[in-house]
């Protein structure tokens, strides 16, 4: 099924009319693809879908859930997690509290990856971890911390790399068993995070497009990986504004491997490896008045 630009426009308008969601600044190529997939899955034409959405609020909610992408992994990109473990987080070691926000956490595998590393660094107790997503279904899964074993088996290799090896010291090896953090039941096909991890994060539904920071704290680290790729350039800049406002000075913004700050916010961050660090606030020079004269 091919979705034309006109189809997409009609769909976005319908979503806007029948809900509080605004998809107009989503990246159009993936949005078209996701819409095509939804129509196939629902066995509907676009006009039929729009009629259904008009008559039933729950359908709109479901469509938005199905439109958004929810792929995630334990320790996706192990090298970057190693960097976080051995370079970034140790810098925060002396702080009394550490606030972390996973924005667009999906089913939460990276939330648990983070918690495991924090535990290894003995920072778990003084960390407050907040996580949000637009989709309440994935948040339920994240809260539960239980995943299909066969979908996540490949990512145990990632665990081995990040948790057991130290790339800065090959002599070092930590023999950390999986059972320290999660239970694996191959027969029932699940991986289940231990309660000391699942009780830690505060999960909240949040739409990055229109909501502000609903946690009402500032952050030392904001993690938002492979989320903004679904937004267009303008919307990406609005999100960077939101993140910039809610980071402490010298706080870290961590994006996906192939996401970067390209626009006006680039000068406000330093890039260290894969991580952006918010520059200290520099008072603007006060020559503006002169220019206006």
């Amino acid at each position, binding site marked *: 099924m091919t979705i034309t630009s006109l189809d997409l426009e009609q769909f976005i308008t319908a979503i806007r009319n029948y809900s509080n969601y605004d998809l107009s600044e989503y990246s159009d190529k*993936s949005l078209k693809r996701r819409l095509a997939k939804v129509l196939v899955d629902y066995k509907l034409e676009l006009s039929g879908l729009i009629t259904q959405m008009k008559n039933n609020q729950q359908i709109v909610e479901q469509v938005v859930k199905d439109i958004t992408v929810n792929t995630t992994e334990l320790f996706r990109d192990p090298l970057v997690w190693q960097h976080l473990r051995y370079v970034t987080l140790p810098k925060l070691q002396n702080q009394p509290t550490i606030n972390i926000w996973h924005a667009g956490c999906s089913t939460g595998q990276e939330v648990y990856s983070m918690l495991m590393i924090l535990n290894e660094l003995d920072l778990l107790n003084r960390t407050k971890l907040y996580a949000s997503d637009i989709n309440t279904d994935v948040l339920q899964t994240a809260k539960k911390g239980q995943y299909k074993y066969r979908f996540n088996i490949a990512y145990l290799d990632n665990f081995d790399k990040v948790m057991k090896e130290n790339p800065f010291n090959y002599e070092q090896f930590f023999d950390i068993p999986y059972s320290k953090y999660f239970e694996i039941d191959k027969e029932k096909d699940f991986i289940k995070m231990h309660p000391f991890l699942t009780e830690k994060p505060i999960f909240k539904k949040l739409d990055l497009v229109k909501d502000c920071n609903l946690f009402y704290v500032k952050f030392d680290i904001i993690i938002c990986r492979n989320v903004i*790729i679904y937004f267009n350039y303008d919307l990406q800049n609005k999100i960077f504004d939101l993140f910039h406002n809610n980071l402490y000075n010298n706080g870290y913004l961590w994006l996906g*491997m192939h996401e970067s700050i*390209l626009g006006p916010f680039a000068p406000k961050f330093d890039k260290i490896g894969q991580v952006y660090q918010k520059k200290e606030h520099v008072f603007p020079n006060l020559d503006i008045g002169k220019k206006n004269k």
Partner: protein
Amino acid sequence: MIYKAIMIGGSAGSFQVVTKILSALPKTLNMPVFLSLHRLKHVRSGFLEALSLKSNLPIIEPNDKEQIKPGRAYLAPANYHMYIELGNRIALSTEEAVNHSRPSIDLSFITAAQAYREKLIGIMLSGANSDGAYGMKKVNEHNGLTIVQDPNECQVKTMTEAAIKITNINHVFSTEQIINYLLKL
């Protein structure tokens, strides 16, 4: 016809061919080259460097929303789909694998076909599954030019034969013919 972009798809057995093509294309090429190649998803480094050794064009694993520039080769990053967006930018996606592949050659070709239409050259090389065949069909439907590596020359011919089967391909070429054709553009 003035073409504006080249999209190359390949999988098993395509590495040498891509290397040959990239070593033949001149630095001054006035269009971008996109490479949507299957690769091991956990092997992140090495592939780019190996491809770069003999290439005259700088090879880039693009970031999301990166502006497309001529004279560069953009390699779909491991574990992402690579789309061509309107507004001359690249978009990446972590959506589920298509035909067990991420990057999916089909998706790269389809979006490039929509963006460049008749100004796209789609080239399909050796490979062991049928990813890309549908994408080539879309290039053809948008009046782009389709070139397939001669299956008899391919290390694995599943992919090229699949493309030939469902689309009226413009040229079935050996590696050398592909290079000569591109050099005459």
